[in-house]
């Protein structure tokens, strides 16, 4: 599916640019996008290296497994197919906690660790496993208690109450999370019935 979305976006864009006489924008935008991708990945090296180092210590000390055990009642429902106390569960919980606290720099490396752990038990390495899809559904719709970036911007523009949007944000993201997890369940079911 990502194949068609990707293809469709590019082909449609080039046709539109051609009709509008804006064709020179394509090459420039493509190269800028490529540059942005490389820059983002390079920036990730530092935070991923740091957190992978620290998480290796946490794993060796048995802390990730303990964390996985503590949250088992919840993860048993969300990830029934994962082995008990699997290290992926610990990483998933740490990723979600960092997201909830608005610690983006810590959340990404934890998420990548979780993906690596999930990939180890994925039967088809090129295809997303159901656990991966559930994890990403949780991750992209995850509750944020403090939207710190936007509060900073509101403060900068002299808002009389910069944190007034905390409540509305929590409500909106909670709705998204509920629907995200429900649709994930539904898709799991549909794919299983179809034997895909």
């Amino acid at each position: 599916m990502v194949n068609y979305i990707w293809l469709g976006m590019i082909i449609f864009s080039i046709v539109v640019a051609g009709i509008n006489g804006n064709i020179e924008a394509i090459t420039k935008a493509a190269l800028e996008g490529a540059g942005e991708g490389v820059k983002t990945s390079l920036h990730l090296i530092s935070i991923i290296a740091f957190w992978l180092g620290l998480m290796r210590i946490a794993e060796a000390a048995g802390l990730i497994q303990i964390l996985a055990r503590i949250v088992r009642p919840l993860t048993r429902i969300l990830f029934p197919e994962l082995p008990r106390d699997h290290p992926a569960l610990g990483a998933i919980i740490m990723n979600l906690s960092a997201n909830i606290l608005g610690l983006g720099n810590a959340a990404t490396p934890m998420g990548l660790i979780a993906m690596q752990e999930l990939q180890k038990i994925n039967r088809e390495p090129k295809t997303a496993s159901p656990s991966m899809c559930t994890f990403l559904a949780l991750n992209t719709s995850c509750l944020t208690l403090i939207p710190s970036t936007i509060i900073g911007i509101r403060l900068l523009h002299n808002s009389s109450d910069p944190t007034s949007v905390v409540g509305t944000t929590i409500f909106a993201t909670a709705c998204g999370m509920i629907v995200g997890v429900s649709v994930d369940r539904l898709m799991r079911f549909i794919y299983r019935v179809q034997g895909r």
Partner: protein
Amino acid sequence: MYGVIAEISRWAIPFAIFFILLIASLKGLQVFEIFVEGASEGFATAIKTIPYLVAMLVAINIFRASGAMAIIFKLLSPLLNNFGFPAEVLTHALMRPLSGSAALGIATNLISTHGPDSFIGQLVSTMQGSTDTTFYVLALYFGSVGVTKYRYAIVVGLAADLTTLIASVYIVNKIFG
């Protein structure tokens, strides 16, 4: 309440570092060695995401710069206007899953034009804070392990984004409208 959560956020990472190192050293682990060993994988993990992010960001950038995105906006805006959704915020709503920095730029611009305490200001603040850059996250996370078939992950992500959008409009209307 807000103060308490902010305080927890401030302490969380220093505490995690302290706690992990403390327990590990009590167990007699060679913490420095283990850290270096783990960190040495950081480079490979980050570099592995480059082709996936390049592919995704190239498509998104072309889509924006060519004017194709503007056409999609025009098609969708009468539909969304029916739901009491202000047209100014639409660009932000559609940009949010595609590009985090571009969406933040639009949000900042709307907040400075309309004021942070206006209806549009509150709405765009809520929208910015409540959803994530779904396409970027999928490209990054799947890319880091070499998964190219996303199955239904995009459907789930976009369903959640759409719900968040509708919920934002509803709650901001109810509280600040």
